[in-house]
């Protein structure tokens, strides 16, 4: 894979944005390395896109099974104290987390 092809699929700026969305901090070397790796993955996807798939149903899952369901029956909950004892911080039976800016999307 040459650099020109890699650059045509994804650039460092896009990788930086995806990294920010995934809460990953990348240094310049990593940014360059992952830009190449992601471009390779996209190239592989492009190879598949180039195939003639006329009449082939899209798959959402590699295994062809549907409707895996469970009955609506309650099971035993986890013990709260045990769970909270493993959290970095807890208070009043709740997880204590750093102040959150803004509301959930």
């Amino acid at each position: 894979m040459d650099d020109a092809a890699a650059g045509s699929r994804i650039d460092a700026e896009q990788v930086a944005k995806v990294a920010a969305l995934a809460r990953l901090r990348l240094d310049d070397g990593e940014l360059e390395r992952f830009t190449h790796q992601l471009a390779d993955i996209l190239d592989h996807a492009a190879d598949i896109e180039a195939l003639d798939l006329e009449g082939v149903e899209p798959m959402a899952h590699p295994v062809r099974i549907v409707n895996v369901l469970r009955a609506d029956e309650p099971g035993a909950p986890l013990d709260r104290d045990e769970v909270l004892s493993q959290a970095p911080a807890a208070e009043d039976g709740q997880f204590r987390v750093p102040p959150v800016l803004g509301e959930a999307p």
Partner: protein
Amino acid sequence: MSGAVAGVDPERWEVVIGLEVHAELATRTKLFSSATAEFGGEPNTHIDPLTLGLPGSLPVLNAHAVELAVRVGLALHCTVQRSVFARKNYFYPDQPKNYQISQYDLPINADGWLELPSGQRVGIERAHLEEDTGKSTHVGGGGRIHDARYSLVDLNRAGVPLLEIVGRPDLRTPEEARAYVSELRAVLVAVGASDGKMEEGSLRVDCNVSVRPRGTEELGTRCEIKNINSLRSLGRAIVAEAARQVDLIEAGERVVQETRHWNEDDGRTHTLRSKEEADDYRYFPDPDLVEVDPDPAWVEQIRASLPVLPAERRHRLAERTGASGETVALVVERGLDDLCLAAIDAGADPARTLTHAEHNLSDERSRDLDPAAFAALVRMEVDGQLTATQAKTVLAELVDSGGDPAAIAAERGFEAMDTSELEGLVDDLIAAHPAEWQRFCEGDGKITGFFVGQVMQATRGQADGKAVTALLAARRG
């Protein structure tokens, strides 16, 4: 339809409203795990490995949630289709997996409609399954998000099944928006999918508002309003947001697409975050879950098991009684239509029956009224054995303690007043109040009430007001 929104010039602007309603489904357990889905409870007691996003935990879909989703979809005339669960990726402590499992390009229900009491049909784009999030409480800074020192997280609600019902932008006024939510709630409750309690958060409404010059087709830039906790807030938020957008455009500025937060205290909407930045959720099919492809025979079975829905009940009652749309809507909303229809079947006059249902049967226990007794009461009234006032009294007692209307009437001494007795009373009154009678004869309509009131007082309410008015008119000649 006037299409008017308070504070917005209806000649110049049209307000376009589309609602997204999240309904918590009435299952016993969560969407993908067996922790209880019950409301409330001590914080973090409804938790299991999946709720906590522990490594190695895997989701398995709740069959009952699928059934309830299909029930709602069919009630909303949607196509029930093959669907796929997708991960909506974002970081927030109220969902520890760091993604919410939802449905994206293939929702379980697509393309339906909801008919409002006015007859208006509002399009439904989709109604898909997804997980609810936990609850966070902000501590310090007076509970305000931006000044908080830290937040506390309770995951009891995380993973509770939600049906997100996305309506098309077919609504134009706060009244239509409120009617839509009320009707949707009635349908959800009727099919047993949700308890519909807005105050407990089992029904949550996000509201998309945009404005456009009246007469144009292209939709304006919309804002999504969150934190709407009641039907009243919904109406107020729409009015405030529409006015804000019109003011911006008229001042030569433009509306920015964003999510805004309704503040009940100052009656305004405030910027929460801009859409462009936060909306990159990187959806992809969840590899831990397989497709849901409901068997058509099973879907038909569910269709056959649905109750008669509010819109059809309104049509049925209107057809049978010829009553106005508003009366019919109110009677159906109170769940009194079956009672009324049974009473009419038993020989009650349809108009009188509905008048009672509308004005005298607001008590919830009215639904348990014996239709035969109700019909007998209406017959006594129509036959002139009871006045309207007396009938109302007997009806209240029937609701309270049941029994036979004739016996109750007799017990209370309600007997139809003899015409000659009433004539005597009216003549005595005319003689005793010559000045008032003079005014009546000169055409002062307001004085009629005085005479009727005097007769009612003298007969302790047993006289028929209409008969008194007729007698007075006859005496005037």
